[in-house]
Each structure stands twice: as C-alpha cells, then as structure tokens.
C-alpha cells in the first residue's frame, strides 16, 4: 500500500494551521521501511514516516493495526518482548537507533514514553519522579534532585496539588494525577521525544481535558507522538495525523485536512466511523 504523505513544513496551508505550525523545523525522527513482527505476526509493514521537531503527531487506526507497536519501535521497547523482531531504519536526529553501537538504555532517556494505564511505581511521589534522574546520574546532590523533581511536577501542574505530600505513595493519587505523575517522571529525564500510548483512555473527561491541555503546553518543548482512539482528541491536540490499518501506513497529513478531506478511502471510512 502506498502512503500519501504531506511534506512536513511545506506548503502555505501547513503554515497557517495548528498551534505549532510555526515551530516546525527539521526532521526529528525519520522512519524508513520499518517492518515489525511478533513471532509470525507481521505487525508493521514497511512504514515510512517523518516526524518533525515541534509537532504533535497523532497515530490513529482500528484496534490491532499496529499503533502501539510503532510507538514501541521508536524507543526500542520491543527489544524486551520475546519473539519481537524489527527490520528497516529509524533515525533520531540523523542517527540510526537500530545501529549496533546504540545503547537502547541511552536511547530511552531521549525518547520517553507514557502508557495507556497510569503506572506509577509503588514508591513515594518524590521517588517516582526522582527515579529517572537518579539512574541517569542527572543530579549531583540532593538540592539539584529536589530541583528537577519540583520543576517536573510544576511542569505537569501537579506541584501545587501534591507539594505537601511528596512522601506519600504515588499510587494513592487519583487516576488523572497518576498519569500526570507519569508524564512528570518522563520529562524529569529530559527527553526530546515523548511517546504517548492512549494516555487518556483510562481517565474521566475532566482529567482527560487536563492532560490534553498539558500536551499543548509540552508541545513547545517536546516532539510528541500520541496514539489515540478519539478523533476529537486527535483533532484537539495534534498538528498532524497518521492513519494506520493492518500494519500499513495509509495516509498521513495535517490534522485539519485528514478530518475534512481524507485522500484515501480507508481513512475516510475510519474517521466517519464505518470501520474500526
């Protein structure tokens, strides 16, 4: 299948839409002919996609089409899955992440991930956020670590809610707070890219709105790749949308255009609710 791909940052239409359109600069992640398998299951088929700095790209598509798999290829989390294989090329800032010398552990510090279900560690709120900086040696003393923790919590709007109970377990927070804690934990490591796999699917509408606002704010500093099942959410937070079906990238384009004028029949069927 062929993907009809807009050239990112090209064309006047691109420059006039989306909150972050001005910031679109150069390619951050370049995916070329990426294939992925779980044992015999061919989960991704020859995906080619460029993700640029300053953009929020939403991956949509029916259940089982490979959205999560694509995300997990970007931080090599699928390396940990028994029987998972990947072929093709993914470049981060021009550097091949599947090349031999690349340490996946170091890669994951640059490409953070937020999961579908909030998964705070059974530790204190403070330690949840401090965990990443600690293992990467980002702070030389306690004061510096405090600083990172506070800035990260502030960044996700959680600091004023939990300032007095940083010692309490992160698992005691509400679902929405837990998810923001997980985002804080991710940005505490200082990544360039944040992968989000249906980050709001376990949350109520109010908590969802908070996370969506947060994504808008974070978009200034991070490249965000978000998987979502909600068209509204994709429309609200993303500047571009990529539609996957059966492991293939069907269509990718600027958000407004995909929703108003999809080029591909499958895309149209999906966004109008005929499949998926």
């Amino acid at each position: 299948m062929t993907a009809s791909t807009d050239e990112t940052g090209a064309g006047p239409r691109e420059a006039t839409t989306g909150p972050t359109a001005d910031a679109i600069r150069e390619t951050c992640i370049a995916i070329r002919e990426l294939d992925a398998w779980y044992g015999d299951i061919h989960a991704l088929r020859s995906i080619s996609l460029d993700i640029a700095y300053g953009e929020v790209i939403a991956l949509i598509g029916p259940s089982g089409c490979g959205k999560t798999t694509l995300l997990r290829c970007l931080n090599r989390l699928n390396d940990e899955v028994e029987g998972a294989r990947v072929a093709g090329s993914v470049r981060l800032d021009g550097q091949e992440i599947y090349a031999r010398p690349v340490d996946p552990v170091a890669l994951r510090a640059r490409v953070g991930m937020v999961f579908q279900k909030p998964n705070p560690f059974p530790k204190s709120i403070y330690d949840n956020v401090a965990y990443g900086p600690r293992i990467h040696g980002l702070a030389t003393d306690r004061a510096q670590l405090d600083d990172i923790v506070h800035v990260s919590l502030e960044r996700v709007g959680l600091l004023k809610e939990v300032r007095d109970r940083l010692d309490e377990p992160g698992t005691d927070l509400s679902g929405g707070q837990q998810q923001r804690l997980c985002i804080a934990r991710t940005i505490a490591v200082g990544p360039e890219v944040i992968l989000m796999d249906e980050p709001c699917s376990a949350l109520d509408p109010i908590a969802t709105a908070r996370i969506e606002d947060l994504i808008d704010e974070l978009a200034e500093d991070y490249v965000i790749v978000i998987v979502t099942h909600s068209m509204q959410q994709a429309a609200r937070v993303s500047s571009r949308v990529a539609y996957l079906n059966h492991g293939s990238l069907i269509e990718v384009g600027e958000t407004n255009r995909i929703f108003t004028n999809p080029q591909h029949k499958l895309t149209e069927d999906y966004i109008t609710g005929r499949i998926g």
Partner: protein
Amino acid sequence: MNMTTVVLLLSGVGIAAFYAGRSRALRLGGGIDAARHLHSLPGYYGYFVAIWATLPAAFVLLGWLLVRERLLIAWVVTGLPESIRELPPGQLDLLLNNVLNLAVLPDAVAADPVIAAATEHYRAAVEISQWSVAVAVGALAMLGTWLALRLVRPGFRARNRVEAVISRFLVAASSIAILTTIGIVLSVLFEALRFFEQVPLHEFLFGTSWSPQTAIRDDQVGSSGSFGIAPLLAGTLLITLISMLIALPIGLMSAVFTAEYSTSRIRGVVKPLLEVLAGIPTVVYGFFAVLSVAPWVRGLGEALGLDVASESALAAGLVMGVMIIPLISSLADDAIRAVPDSLREGATALGATRYETIVGIILPAAMPGIAGGVLLAVSRAIGETMIVVMAAGLAANLTANPLEAVTTVTVQIVTLLVGDQEFESAKTLAAFALGLMLFVITMLLNVLGLTFVRRYRERYE
C-alpha cells in the same frame, strides 16, 4: 441379617427411589416435554426422593452402630444373676469381655454356666437387635420414599432442596478438617498443662539445661531431670539461621533469574527441576547430611585446624538450607511475577537497565510477598524434623558455635516419644509441651507470613 446386607439393601432402595422419583416427575410433567413444565430437571426429583429414602435411614443405622456395643452389654448385664452384677467393676469387665469373645466364636460353649448363659443371652440379643434395626431401617426408607414421592409435583423445587443437602455435606466435610485441627491443638494443650503441673512454666521457658531423664524407680539415682527449653531453642535457631543463610540468597537469586532473566524455554526446564528438589523426601536429605555433608564439614574443619563435632549444626543447617531453596525460590518467583508488567515497562521506558529495574522497582514491589515467603520458609525450617534427627545430634548444648553438635525441639520430641514410655511421666509429657511450643511459634510465623503474602496480592488486583 448382618450390617453389610442392610447397607446393600438400603443402596438398592436409594437407586429405586431415584428412578421412581424421576419417572413420577416425568409423568406428572407430561412426558416428552416435561422439562418445560417441571421446575427442576427430572433427575433432581430422582435425587430428592433418593435422599429421603436413604439419608434418614442411614442416620439411624449410623446412630445404632455407635451405641450398639454399649446397649448390648447393658442388656446382657441386666440378664446376669444378682450376685454377679454386684461384682467390683474390674471383675465384671473381665467377665463381660469373656462373654464378648465367646459370642463371636460360633459353637463355642463356656464351661462356667453363668458365662454360657450370658453368651447365649448376648447372641440372642445381637440377633434380635439386628433384625429390628434392619426392619426399622427398611421401614424408614419406605416411609421416606413414600413421603418424598408425594411431594413430587411439577412446581416442586427439587433442585433447591437437593442443592441445600449438598451444601450441608460440603460444610460437614470442611468442618472435619477444622474440628480435627482443634482437637489436636486441644489435646496437645491439655497434655502440656499436665506437664506444667509437674514442671513449673518458668523453669521450662527460662531454664538453661535440658536433660529429661527422670527416675523411673525410686531407687534410681542422679536423674532428677531438668526441662529448660533454652538449649533446644538455641539449637533450633542456630540451624534455622544457617539454613536461611544458604536458602535465602540462593533461592532469591534463582527466583530473579527464572522470573526476570530466563527465556520461557529455560524457565520451562529450571522450574520443574527446582520442584523435583522440593519433592525429595526429607529422610533422603537426612542421610545425605549424615553420610556426605557431615564428614565433609568435619574434614574441611580439620584441614583448617578447627574442632568439628561429627554431628554439627553446620552440616544439618547446610542440608536444610538446600532443602528450603525451592520453597523460597518458588514463592519469590510468584511474588516477582505478580509485579505487573506495566511497572517493568515503565522503568525500562525511563532508560533503566534490566538490573536497575529489578533492584530499584521489581524487588521493592515484590518485597512483601518475598518476606511472607521467607517467613513460611523459616517456619518450615523450625518444624523440620528428619534432617535434624539424623544429622544434628542429641546433645543439648547451649551454644552459638555451628561446629558443635546441638539438638532441636523437634529432635527432642522424637527422642522423648520413641521407645517404651510411661505416659504419666514428666519426660513423656514434656514432648507435648515442646509440641505446643513449636506449634505456637510456627503458627505465629505462618499467620504473619500469610498476612504479608495476602496483603501483597491484593495490592495489584
């Protein structure tokens, strides 16, 4: 008519009642499509009738079997002449025993006319009682069948009745386990209390010397017996400690390996092997300890210029440690694998290495479960008997030196009760006091351990 026949006949009645009940239900329900008119499936009506046919009769039969002996003897006694009934109880019992023994031998006739008469009397009583019981049981079975059959109507809730009976049976079955436990605990408790009448509690708990040899005859000298439990507890503790020093690190590391590092193929080999280790009878570990490990420890000690007893706490502890490895590793493996994958992935996605993830996230999260497992393992080590009986020795030394021979609570219980014993002596009763002690300790550890394990399980529901 003997009892086996009665039981067989009753079973026959039950089966017949089942078919009678079922066919009546089918007939009243209207033949082919009876199932639509009946409240319950036809079979339930059959079971219902069968239950009423057999259960009351079976209870009567059972009740009769329980009191039979006593009733028959009472019956024989009333038939004896006055002079013999007035005999002292001991002699009367002897005579009755004679009667009972004679009665079961066919054609045997006693020389003593009184006994001969009593035997005849007894035989007649047995005959009559068996017939009357058989008749009573039969009548009850008929009555039950008839009453139950009358109840069988299409709207009758046979299933609910049958299920109620079944649930009673289940309750009864589970109470057997509970009642047995309570019975054992109480009997140990009462015997222990009798022990404490002879030996004061504080002497037992705080005395530092254990030598349970009491004088059996008055003219024996030198063995007044002392029952201080301290050396036994010290020995138990020492061996437990040594075994945990072996089992804890090895078991934990093997659990981390199987749960986190091994591929599913390796896991498929390692886990069953560990379970084989867990299935080896402790007596095998015991002779392994005596024949291989103890001499080896002794030889090693000698090579180092140390004085090692031929039965040392170290040898027993080492082998017990090996025995406990699979227990710890399997409980810890469960605890580690119960940590949700989302935590693993969360840490990995932050750039933690596998080792960092395990040490920083997985093990802390699994700690309550692991701690619970360790407590269970400790209580297992404390209660373990065979290995220490064979390898630890009998010397009640109050020592912390693992190279000396020590003895444990379990070993002493065994030695106190092996061989001919006088049941009333402090020496024998001491076994019960030790048993009570052991029971209290291991029960506390188990309760604590299970609480940990359970609380931990709930956390990730």
